[in-house]
């Protein structure tokens, strides 16, 4: 049983219509010497148990900052959350006490970081680091906790787990370290797992192993998963739905099949078209022109307008809301109809 000493903690059990996790109009800003960086400007997405949401987008678009806000690991200051809610089973995490928040973090919402080498502590054995989860959060004895660590290393398929439990992180390959990170993140059976670029630093063959492992763990426990990535292949493989970010905003939300078949935002469309295709060999690749936006000096109106082939005059002045296309899709483009139909601006 989970310890629920605090009555403010989110309930467990059936959810009804309520999503497991809902980010609602989240804003995050950083005070920097150069000015206020508005890294997240009204992000909304939601997740149900067993579902995989892929968050896609350019470098610096706010994917990780949103995840860090959900985990409650942003440094405040310089970070500030001026607006928005993060509801976990209906409870706004941003209104919880620090103590209650700590109970949620790692136990009910867990995260895997991109760089396993720097996320693991080089001076402790991997067994000690995994078993720490059980000693701290479950009050287990050292011996029981170590037994649990071996069990978990087995579960993430580290060969000869029993012999390797006392090895240090540098004695493992990149793929194995990522497995150890995964072991730590699922140690306490979280309901939500946030994986921030879990395979970016790895080879494709190892990536395939890790993605398969994550899918299996998810099937076993019905975890909801938020997968942050810029790999359109990985997304097509595992996601149920997708949120595309650009300049700190969601520009498109859609089920995976819809978005690959007919994107409703020019940025998404550009990304999909720039994938090299066999039949286009020898021709120029489609390239989105121009540069990603500078958060300190965001374009007026629609942030994508300097790069957009569909741009009209009002795009320069009016920031598009996230228009509802249907109950499951949204696009932050004034001209989403034209984009869906495929006729260029």
């Amino acid at each position, binding site marked *: 049983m989970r310890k629920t000493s605090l009555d403010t903690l989110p309930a467990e059990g059936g959810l009804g219509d309520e999503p497991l996790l809902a980010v609602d109009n989240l804003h995050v800003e950083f005070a920097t010497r150069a000015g206020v960086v508005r890294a997240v400007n009204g992000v909304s997405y939601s997740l149900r148990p067993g579902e995989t949401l892929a968050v896609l987008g350019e470098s610096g678009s706010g994917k990780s900052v949103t995840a860090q806000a959900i985990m409650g690991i942003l440094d405040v200051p310089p970070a500030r959350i001026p607006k928005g809610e993060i509801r976990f089973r209906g409870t706004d995490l941003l209104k919880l006490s620090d103590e209650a928040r700590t109970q949620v973090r790692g136990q009910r919402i867990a995260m895997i970081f991109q760089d396993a080498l720097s996320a693991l502590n080089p001076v402790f054995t991997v067994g000690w680091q995994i078993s720490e989860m059980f000693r701290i959060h479950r009050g287990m004895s050292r011996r029981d906790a170590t037994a649990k660590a071996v069990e978990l290393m087995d579960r993430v398929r580290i060969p000869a787990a029993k012999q390797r439990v006392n090895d240090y992180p540098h004695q493992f390959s*990149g793929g194995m370290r990522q497995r150890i990170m995964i072991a730590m993140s699922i140690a306490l059976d979280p309901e939500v797992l946030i994986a921030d670029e879990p395979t970016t630093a790895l*080879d494709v063959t190892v990536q*395939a192993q890790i993605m398969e492992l994550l899918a299996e763990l998810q099937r076993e426990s019905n975890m909801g998963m938020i997968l942050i990535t810029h790999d359109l292949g990985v997304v097509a493989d595992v996601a149920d739905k997708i949120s595309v970010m650009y300049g700190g905003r969601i520009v498109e939300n859609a089920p995976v099949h819809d978005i690959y078949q007919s994107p409703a935002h020019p940025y998404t469309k550009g990304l999909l078209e720039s994938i090299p295709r066999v039949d286009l*060999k020898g021709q120029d690749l489609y390239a989105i022109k121009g540069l990603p936006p500078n958060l300190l000096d965001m374009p007026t109106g629609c942030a994508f307008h300097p790069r957009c082939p569909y741009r009209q005059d009002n795009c320069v002045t009016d920031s598009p809301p996230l228009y509802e296309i249907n109950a499951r899709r949204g696009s932050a483009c004034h001209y989403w109809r034209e984009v869906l139909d495929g006729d260029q601006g």
Partner: protein
Amino acid sequence: MATKGERILEVRDLVKHFPLTQGILFKKQIGAIKAVDGVSFDLDRGETLGIVGESGCGKSTLAKLLMALERPTSGSVVINGRDMARAKGAELKRMRRNIQMVMQDPYTSLNPRMTVGDIIGEPYDIHTEVAPKGDRGRKVQELLEVVGLNPDHINRYPHQFSGGQRQRIGIARGLALQPEIIVCDEPVSALDVSIQAQVINLLERLQNEFGLAYIFIAHDLSVVRHISDRVAVMYLGKIVELGRDVEIYDKPAHPYTQALLSAVPVPDPEGREQRERIILQGDPPSPANPPSGCRFRTRCWKAQEICAEQEPLLEIRPGTRHESACHFAETHDVVHAG
């Protein structure tokens, strides 16, 4: 000047072993990391050879050997008929002009304290014959224009440019000495997806314009297919398969290539449940102690006794039309990323 299609680079039995030593005062060699272990291939003028393979298989070491930044343990790198691996002094300097490199990381490979003009013009310090002092500024501005940057930005510093722009600066520098060969080691991996396509298009345009030959190292297999005429697949210091892009991608004959291609996620969710995937078990063995016979045998599902005893050579095998290094090579149609 040679003409298109003519051989400009011949690499033969190239080997690079890094010594593994023990002891601090009296270093004793206890073994060697066999980073590159017998690699041979040719490159023609205007051609692109893609090189793929897992981390640590020796791609960057190979690149450094081609550039004569590392001296080979044995083997030869013959450029336009002359062996660069054995050249010294003035001759080596002259040969180096002909082969230049574009590096992976546009953020750290440029000196932050030098202006863009100085960075791109730096090769002229060594090769003064290419651009006399007074001519340099104009040459650098020309290069900036060629790679699609504003020639007026010649006095700016790297931090004033985006990642994609910095990669263009690296490319401009690579072009400064008008080489015939450019070695690109992961030239787009550090860039955003939306910027990668811009840089790849630029590389292709420059190739057509100047008849450049490329060695193109990358881990993104669909990018390699797009840009390459031929592709070499490396595993633990050796080339295990070499052929034209269609042969490697559509008819791979080596089990490792087959596994590698099937691991690439297809950017299309249709039919994903039915997709067949070869998931390799375990990690590649250490290059300090590679398996006997075929180096892939510890992870190969087709391995037989002979695989441990006899090293399979890179050659054209029965039933295939390109070279592969497997005793049981047979083509296999893979569904993979375009």
